[in-house]
């Protein structure tokens, strides 16, 4: 969970603190800072969520909390 929140902090804030300098780089032809807030960070959030939900499930199973009642 700590890792999740750190990743969230990075994609949510740290990137945009340096927005000015990032924009000189480019990704797929977009200026990078623009790309990050238009798509990059949002996609990253989705991936983090699925990843951490799976991870948490594994941890639950390991400690025997899996109820196995749903999909």
């Amino acid at each position, binding site marked *: 969970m700590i890792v999740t929140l750190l990743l*969230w902090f990075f994609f949510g*804030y740290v990137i*945009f603190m340096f927005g000015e300098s990032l924009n000189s780089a480019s990704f*797929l032809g977009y200026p990078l*800072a623009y790309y990050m807030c238009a798509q990059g960070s949002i996609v990253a959030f989705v991936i983090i*969520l699925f990843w951490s*939900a799976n991870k948490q499930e594994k941890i639950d199973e390991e400690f025997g909390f899996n109820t196995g009642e749903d999909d």
Partner: protein
Amino acid sequence: MFKGKFIDNLPKIYGTYTGGFLIFIILMAIAESAGMTKETIGILFVAFTVCIYAFIGWLSRTVQVDAYYVAGRTVPTVFNGMATAADWMSGASFVAMAGGIYFGGYTYMAFLVGWTGGYILVSSLLAPYLRKFGCYTVPDFIGTRYGGNLARFCAVVVLTLASFTYVTAQINATGTIAARALQIPFELGVWVGLGSILLCSMLGGMRAVTWTQVAQYIVLIIAYLIPIFWISNKGGYGLFPHLMLGEEVARLGELEAQFGLVKNSAAAVKEAGVPGGLKSISLPHSGVPEGGMAAWKFISLALCMMVGTASLPHILMRYFTTPSVKAARKSVAWSLFFIALLYTSAPMLATVSKLSLMDPTLPTGIIGKEISAVMAIDWVSAWTAQKQAFIADFNGDGILQLNEWFMRGDVVVLSTPEVAGLPYVISGLVAAGGMAAAMSTADGLVLAIANALSHDIYFKIIDPKADVRKRLIVARSLLVIIGAFGAYIASMRITSILGAVAWAFDFAMSGLFFPLVLGVWWKRATRQGAIAGMIAGLASGTAYLIYVYPKFMGNPAWLGIDHLRFGIIGASVCLVVMVVVSLMTPEPDSATQKMVDELRVPSGKTILGKQH
């Protein structure tokens, strides 16, 4: 009745529904080429979709408390994700967001980051634990965790304030769209919109709202994506716009340099007689403003929206409907996935629509051309006649400059199909999508308020012995009263859509975020601490709003925290007060501490009984 079967058949049912909707669009397109008028197409689109939602609402009617408040806790993760996405994406997301990016460029996109990042907080800090708790409403959790009616009551106050600010904006949006599509006055449109919202939610409560929201999500995402892909392919910008608009973004930067970004002085705008609410483009599309202050403003806005997301009751309560704790977590991920489909498209829509206006080498471009020629274009004269667009020739050279073209932000999404020269059927589709977006959010919000009042105030505080029938009658009457009151406020048109939405986030964040999070994660948090925190947070946030908002006191903002960001003040005060008061008062009894421990264990029974 045949519930298990119904849940199993969901993919099939909604698959058929999507197919039916696509066939309806094709039929409309054929009807248009056969000479059907624009008005009829607009009316048919909105009327057809609203009737379907009402039908679903009627099918889902229920007399069970569990089904009414939490849809029987049987909603599968993916469908709950869709319903949450519809619940979440309001008229503001659908109608105003691309418009905001159109005018605000990079600076505005803090909203995009904020409105998506908040789900990480929801998933890691709150949703699974609240699901485990097994409550019906958000104040239900506060009331049981901290104990006592006062804490419950404070939570209801914050919830009502935040949700009500939000709901008037949504009813306003349904009214605007209904008025335009059905050709009726705005005031009447508001009541028509309200009627359709209530039809969806009154008979079946959460269960009906869940299934209509899934249907609404399907309509709104189709309505948003079709125009973007169409324009992008028609204009030759690339087959898949999300990955292929890099050049266009760069081209916008060149055009901005060529025309020059000029901020008009307020006096000049007033003198030219520009109608209120119309704006010209004065901020760079992809350029990042210089300096630490600009970066701080971006981050602080994103922070407010994220923390606000995690404390908005109508979103949190959607995760009470999943079958298990694990499903609640998965469901948050699916929600964000469905939201991201629209959010990543909004900047693309803004880009293509801005480019088709600004690039003088394109046939659709108007900037840099002669004003008399521009005024002769059909859509320009139509929108200017409705005071949604305006041309002011400041330098008197007869050529339209970038700063001389004014437009209302909300119009960008609705007008883009016309501007790019798509058939009218697409405009009808977009209107239906906007209606779906505004209705689904209004449904969720009205239900959140009515449930909190009926469950937490009426059942838990006033009359704990009320039987099931009486509870549901109270819940339904409250739904109608709140809806009517919201429509009444909305018909007075006192706030702009977007401003009201941002305020709702700040209110929720000031009063609810820390009591919820610390309630789960800090055993030492006491009742007195939570009550003091909620009151102090809300009071200081509101006081600061009054202090800085131009229409109230209009004082200069402290550290750039303006009226869109007042939640930062509210939430910090709430945190400090809550921690200090909690440490000063004796720690909670062992039953409460045990309850908090139990909360963090994902398996096993819910803490509150099934019928409470």
